[in-house]
């Protein structure tokens, strides 16, 4: 076991998979000579050369498309998009091509690409660098969307994503790249499907994904001091969603809160709560609550930004509301 930062975990997964399989290549802006905006490919340009660590011009739609084309003939491209905001430029090739080629071809072709991108707010990056957008990708048939909460999943899910035969979007987070966790030294994989109960509890289920898992964990600590036992579920995968794990937890606690960093309308929380209504409505003994961002473009001003984006206290207060304590 070694303490590993999130970015190091990603780098290690790249390195091992590229050493194993010459068909694995990485593409993105500044990932080569410059070592990567988040250091996720640092040192790999020298090791694997410019034909495998490919520095791309600022042409998101087309280099993602080139990765998709290459994946159709056996390559395993890992595409880094510097920020999920810029992934909007590649929506055509991701949503109209990668997600649909297997289906349109009647199963003859596949697009085993991995697209990694940070989605989330950092500090005062303002409206055009703070998109989260998980909800946009999770609504597209033919994609897998995963959200590693820490180094263990960042490494293990990237390894799985590279080997899976489907297009996988990995949503990382600007504020998580330096997060550290002990991870095994020997190779391991973490599956792309399956939510995980990361803290057991009996009174309320707090559901999060990506960064909001950490808000749920912090809120659960505080709730424990109040004598409330919160269970925390990390969704891990937003497409497909593991409804079974959610149902089991809700049937145990009878209360639920979903925390997302994105705006709420047509969001992750809407989908999760609808699923709960369909799967275990009668298990609930209070109204579910969604904790989410305000329905505004993310402001630059730090006070406004703080007011727009949910934090651990919001999750805590929301949980008290579900518990009928406020």
């Amino acid at each position, binding site marked *: 076991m070694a303490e590993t930062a999130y970015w190091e975990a990603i780098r290690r997964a790249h390195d091992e998979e590229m050493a194993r399989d010459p068909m694995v290549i990485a593409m993105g802006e500044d990932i080569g000579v410059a070592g990567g905006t988040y250091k996720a490919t640092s040192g790999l340009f020298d090791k694997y050369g410019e034909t495998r660590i490919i520095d791309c011009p600022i042409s998101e*739609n087309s280099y993602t498309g080139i990765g998709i084309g290459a994946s159709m*003939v056996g390559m395993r491209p890992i595409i880094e998009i510097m920020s999920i905001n810029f992934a909007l430029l590649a929506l055509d090739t991701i949503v109209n091509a990668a997600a649909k080629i297997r289906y349109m071809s009647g199963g003859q072709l596949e697009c085993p690409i991995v697209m990694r991108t940070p989605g989330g707010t950092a500090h005062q990056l303002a409206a055009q660098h703070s998109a989260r957008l998980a909800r946009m990708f999770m609504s597209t048939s033919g994609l897998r969307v995963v959200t590693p909460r820490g180094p263990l999943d960042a490494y293990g899910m990237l390894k799985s994503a590279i*080997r899976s035969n489907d297009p996988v979007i990995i949503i990382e987070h600007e504020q998580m790249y330096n997060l550290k966790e002990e991870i095994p030294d020997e190779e391991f994989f973490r599956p792309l499907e399956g939510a995980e109960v990361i803290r057991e509890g009996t009174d309320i289920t707090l559901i999060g994904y990506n960064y909001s898992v950490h808000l749920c964990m912090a809120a659960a600590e505080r709730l424990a001091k109040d004598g409330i036992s919160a269970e925390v579920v990390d969704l891990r995968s937003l497409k497909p969603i593991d409804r079974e794990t959610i149902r089991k937890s809700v049937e145990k606690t009878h209360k639920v809160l979903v925390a997302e960093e994105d705006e709420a309308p047509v969001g992750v929380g809407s989908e999760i709560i609808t699923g709960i209504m369909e799967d275990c409505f009668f298990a609930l003994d209070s109204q579910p609550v969604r904790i989410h961002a305000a329905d505004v473009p993310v402001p630059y001003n730090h006070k406004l930004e703080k007011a727009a984006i949910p934090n651990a206290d919001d999750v805590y207060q929301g949980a008290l509301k579900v518990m009928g304590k406020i």
Partner: protein
Amino acid sequence: MNDADKKRLLREMIFYRRFEDRTFEAYMERKIGGFLHLYSGQEAVATGVLEMAVVGKGKENDYVITGYRDHIHAIKTGAPPREVMAELYGKETGSSKGRGGSMHIFDANQNFMGGYALVGQPFPLAAGLALGAKHKGTKQIAICFLGDGANNQGTFHETMNMASIWNLPVLFVCENNGYAIGTHIARSTAQPSQYKRVDTAYNMKSSQHDGMDIEEVMAAAKQAIDYVRNEEKPYFIEFMTYRFRGHSMSDAKGYRTKEEEAEWEKRDPIKIFSKKLIEAGVLKEADIKAMEKEIDDEIENDIIKFAEESPEPKVEELTRYVLDDNPDPRWIGPLQK
């Protein structure tokens, strides 16, 4: 080219024309639905270019990709015509098992990598196919057929640039038929000569040729394909052509004149080539008539029959082919608790 090849190529072009004519009828009979874009008038381009490429040899083929006007490109690359027709009929025996339709013909066994409806989307996909071929060192090239209108998409510029800096073995074939649906090129495009848009801008070799004379197409395509394969660099080739029918089925062609149509019909690629072959004594008018009869019989008695008689996909298989049907649990799950 020997006489036998000349006869074969003429027959192919007539076949393609008749095939498209027959899909038109089937559409009118409501056997075919959705959008249907026919290739009539442009036959010399796909036939001539692909004649010079590696096609019809299965997985050894060059990679071919195009837009929604894709039936003929698929067939010339090696897709069986009856499977293409069955696809138009939405049948399980179709090229894409009835899931794709007219605009999405795929034949992975012949490296026909698909028809795509989003104008300009195939540019980067083609460059990616070329990147894969180069990486694997297979000497295959990628050939991307698109229209003049597609060149106003961002993907055109982005991809020309990357194909050029990365020396990707891809041939971009611009089928300049002068129109993007009903908009004449002069009204949409600052530089109407498409080949001029890449040479200095993206430092890529390019040229423009008559797309109605198959022999000219073949000569130009040979040079371009040799260059792409041997130099491992991209090439942009533009063919001047014309589509004889409307953009798709519901097109009254109000945007162009009868005179213009008549001018281009004189340059019908099938007429030009037939005339040449008759003048050279390779065949007679009567041979062509016989050819047409044979083709019509084949289309009716084999191709249409196959499409008509084939089963539709099963509704129980609605959600097949969305994701990998046989995923490896080590990568996919479930998560071990």
